[in-house]
């Protein structure tokens, strides 16, 4: 009887969890907490997206035209950066890509083997899942390495500006004024966001990226 009750409670808890945890999807906003304050990031509207795009284009043009003292380009397009990385530092992005591809092929084989196991093959399932996790970790390291090498390209810096601008406009803080809850913009303008060196700026950027799934 005790066991039955426990089991029933577990089922009820699980059902309750299903119903009570829809905050990720219930609307197009994502709530989060930094220290003791509550914030939310909402989806940008058309006007904000257009402004962000405009800013991205201007940044792109600005970086494209910037020169060093000797007249050479201060920033490089991704294609040229890849070439320079290989020539001057021996970092081969194409090789990283092919290593990623190879790992993905291995991953595919492991997944296919895993799919053809029955529930009773407990040990084999666990072993394959461990191998899959190891391959995924290796792939992630390569992907992060590549992203790090290419972060300074003109395209990536312009895209960075795009996301930062949207973050500066879409993050709101919850405040209670005369027992009435209101949501207010955290940064009045983009320049305020740029000056903000607290964790909030970075966490908010991560949250917006997550909300838009623009990873």
């Amino acid at each position, binding site marked *: 009887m005790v066991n039955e009750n426990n089991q029933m409670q577990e089922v009820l808890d699980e*059902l309750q969890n*299903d119903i009570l*945890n829809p905050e*990720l*999807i219930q609307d197009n906003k994502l709530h989060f907490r930094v220290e003791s304050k509550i914030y939310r990031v909402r989806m940008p*509207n058309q006007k904000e997206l257009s402004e962000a795009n405009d800013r991205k284009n201007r940044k792109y043009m600005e970086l494209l035209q910037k020169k060093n003292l000797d007249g050479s380009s201060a920033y490089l397009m991704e294609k040229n950066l890849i070439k320079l990385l290989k020539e001057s530092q021996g970092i081969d992005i194409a090789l990283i890509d092919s290593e990623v591809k190879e790992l993905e092929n291995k991953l595919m084989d492991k997944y296919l083997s895993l*799919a053809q*196991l029955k529930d009773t093959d407990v040990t084999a399932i666990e072993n394959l899942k461990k191998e899959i996790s190891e391959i995924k970790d290796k792939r992630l390291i390569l992907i992060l390495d590549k992203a790090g090498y290419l972060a300074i390209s003109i395209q990536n810096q312009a895209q960075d500006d795009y996301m930062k601008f949207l973050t500066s406009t879409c993050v709101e803080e919850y405040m209670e004024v005369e027992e009435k809850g209101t949501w207010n913009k955290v940064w009045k303008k983009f320049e305020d966001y740029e000056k903000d060196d607290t964790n909030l700026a970075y966490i908010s950027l991560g949250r917006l990226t997550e909300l838009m*799934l623009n990873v």
Partner: protein
Amino acid sequence: MYKYESTDDKLRKLARSSYWQNLYRSSKECSNIQLFENTNNLSGIQVRFLYFLAVYSMLFDELARHEDEFLSVNVIEDVERCDGYLIYRNKKQDHLWKKYRREEKLSEHKSRHPKSHKDGKAQLIEVDLRRE
């Protein structure tokens, strides 16, 4: 050991829950059932959630019809096994589609050239001339 639960893991857990599966099914039958508070400007997360709702709905349907020996509730509830099953399922469907197309071509050939198939000796052979 603490296991980090990614956004995708959370979305999948919600999407395969009976509550959301029932709601999803009902919303397909009855257009005035709304899944989210907002009706437009869906977030990336919401779009992904809709994708998972559809995937799990399909898997639960196939499970009910006992379509594949490797599909079980445990497979659906385990992210890695579920991903593996979806890859395997795609390959299987691809294979079945190719087989169907081959049979279709053969029957087309038979109806055009009935004489060549009369003694059962004629065969349709596909040759891949692409370079290795």
